[in-house]
């Protein structure tokens, strides 16, 4: 699945051109479209983390929105204390990972259905707790006074996405990445060659929650209003699942494609059928998991394989 890295070695200048193009977009692009691109970058970061937990550890987190929201709260408080944007989103990521540490120590003992339901419960409890405590703004939410222009936010999000993608590709073939791959393929075999499974699962979990927190911090800087009903709802968990499964489970480019699909269709729906958005999303998701289990990237990959096979046969 690492053919993007191969492609980079072969035709690196194309990627550099794409990056330059993306970074120069704020110079001539409409604010509305920039906002959509910003959201795509944010959700791609979150989806990368979500997919890592899902495919490398085999853990489906139905309450990942909890970590997204916790990043949002960290970032919001940091900005209320007049901390600048970039440190505040780093605080969001690190703070979320810090919260995730004890939770991971407990919940990572669970597997499959148990883990999924435990995370679902966690998100619901957090929802109750946040609404109960006035400190977190309750139902009214937190209102940020900081007002960053969409251009700044876009550049920050793009840099964060590039760094995340870089780390993901590097770690795929590093010693650490290979160990995690071994665990994801066969836990018993990994245990028998002396890998500490619990520790590697915890590292992956922490990195995944760090990315979710980072995404939450970025998103709240753009929204400037932090409502528990938007940040802690099951629908944002659903958006992560959608981005990962529609893009293609287990493939790094698939996450970016999935995020782009989800956010752009959401933006299109917002114009005329905002109310039934999730009904249509749900139908799309069900169709994808029943008929195209590889997602969009899986489809492209299959097509590319067939194409190159035919070319090599001709030669």
């Amino acid at each position, binding site marked *: 699945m690492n053919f993007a890295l191969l492609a980079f070695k072969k035709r690196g200048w194309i990627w550099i051109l794409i990056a330059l193009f993306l970074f120069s977009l704020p110079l001539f692009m409409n604010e509305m479209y920039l906002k959509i691109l910003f959201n795509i970058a944010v959700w791609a970061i979150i989806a990368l983390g979500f997919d890592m937990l*899902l495919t490398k550890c085999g853990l*489906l987190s*139905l309450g990942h929105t909890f970590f997204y929201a916790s990043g949002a709260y960290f970032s919001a408080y940091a900005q209320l204390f007049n901390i600048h944007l970039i440190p505040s989103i780093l605080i969001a990521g690190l703070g979320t990972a810090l919260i995730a540490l004890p939770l991971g120590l*407990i*919940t990572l*003992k*669970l597997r*499959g*259905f*148990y883990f*999924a*339901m*435990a995370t*679902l*419960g*966690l*998100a*619901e*409890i957090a*929802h*109750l*707790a946040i609404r*109960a405590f006035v400190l977190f703004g309750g139902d009214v939410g937190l209102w940020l006074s900081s007002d960053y222009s969409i251009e700044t936010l876009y550049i920050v999000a793009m840099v964060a996405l590039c760094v995340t993608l870089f780390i993901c590709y590097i770690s795929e073939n590093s010693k650490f990445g290979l160990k995690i791959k071994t665990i994801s393929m066969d836990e018993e075999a990994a245990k028998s060659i002396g890998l500490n499974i619990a520790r590697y699962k915890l590292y992956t979990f922490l990195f995944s929650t760090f990315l979710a927190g980072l995404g939450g911090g970025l998103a709240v800087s753009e929204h400037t209003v932090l409502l528990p*009903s938007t940040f*802690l*709802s*099951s*629908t944002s968990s*659903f958006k992560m*699942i959608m981005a990962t*499964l529609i893009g293609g*489970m287990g493939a790094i480019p698939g996450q970016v494609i999935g995020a782009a699909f989800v956010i752009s269709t959401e933006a299109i729906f917002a114009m005329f059928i905002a*109310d*039934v*958005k*999730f*009904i249509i*999303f*749900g*139908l799309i*998701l*069900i169709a994808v*998991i*029943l008929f195209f*289990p590889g997602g969009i990237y899986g489809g492209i990959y299959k097509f590319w394989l067939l194409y190159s096979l035919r070319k090599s046969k001709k030669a």
Partner: protein
Amino acid sequence: MGIDLTYVGNLLISGFLLGGLYSLITMGLFLAWSVVGLIYMHLGHLMILAAYIAFFMFKLYGISPLFSFFIACPILFGISAFLQHALIKRVVSQSFVTQMVLCFGIAIILEDLMVLLWGRETKNIPLFIGESFKFSGLFVSKTLLIVAAVAFTTIFLLWLLMSKTMFGKSVRAVADNREVARLMGIDTERLYLKLGGLVGAVVAVAGCLIAFYPFSASGSGTWAYVFTSFVVMALGGLGSFKGVIIAGIALGIVQNMSILIVPSGFGTAMGFVLLIVMLLIKPEGLFGEKH
């Protein structure tokens, strides 16, 4: 100062009765899990659908929720059997991620449909509010008593169905071993379809009872019900009928007693704590078998 004994007694009794409701809510999830082998996460939303049916029956025609079973059960039986036949049948032998995401997707679709049709406001049936029975100093709310009576009756009927009829026997056979049951001549596909409907009907009864309390399709309430029923099932040991009833009652009592130490409204959190403690000490549950 000591804790008032009658207060504790009240909490105990209402916890016991609430536990009956929890057991009933769990029955649908439990039956589906033990036979089909996957977590029907959309059952919470089907339950809320039944609650809406009961609510509108009461509001428009003045029918008591205790009689709207006869309307809600067939409707939910149909919907649930349709979902089973059209979607869930296809993922039974696939990975758990596919199964869970499918059920989650169905739940999200149902949630948005209900929000679209009936809005986000919480609704409830304003019947028997503030009425209670009194036995030698102990107060029991009338609503809770009715709810628990219906819940325990339904569980008893379900138990009769499972233990005395041919249908129940074949369900237990499939739950035990799918392949052997098929070899013995049980049509598993048909059984799944019937079971899917039955699960919907059980959930419909629970939904009509839920309608006495404030409910809403959107927000965290529905997921809290799903989570609570999973906790009850895991506590009882996955796949034990007796376990579900006892764990449900235990959870009801623990949640009610927790009012003494933590702020009210954190019942779900107590469920989470109980689940984690249970899984760390005795992972197979109260009545589960060790693997």
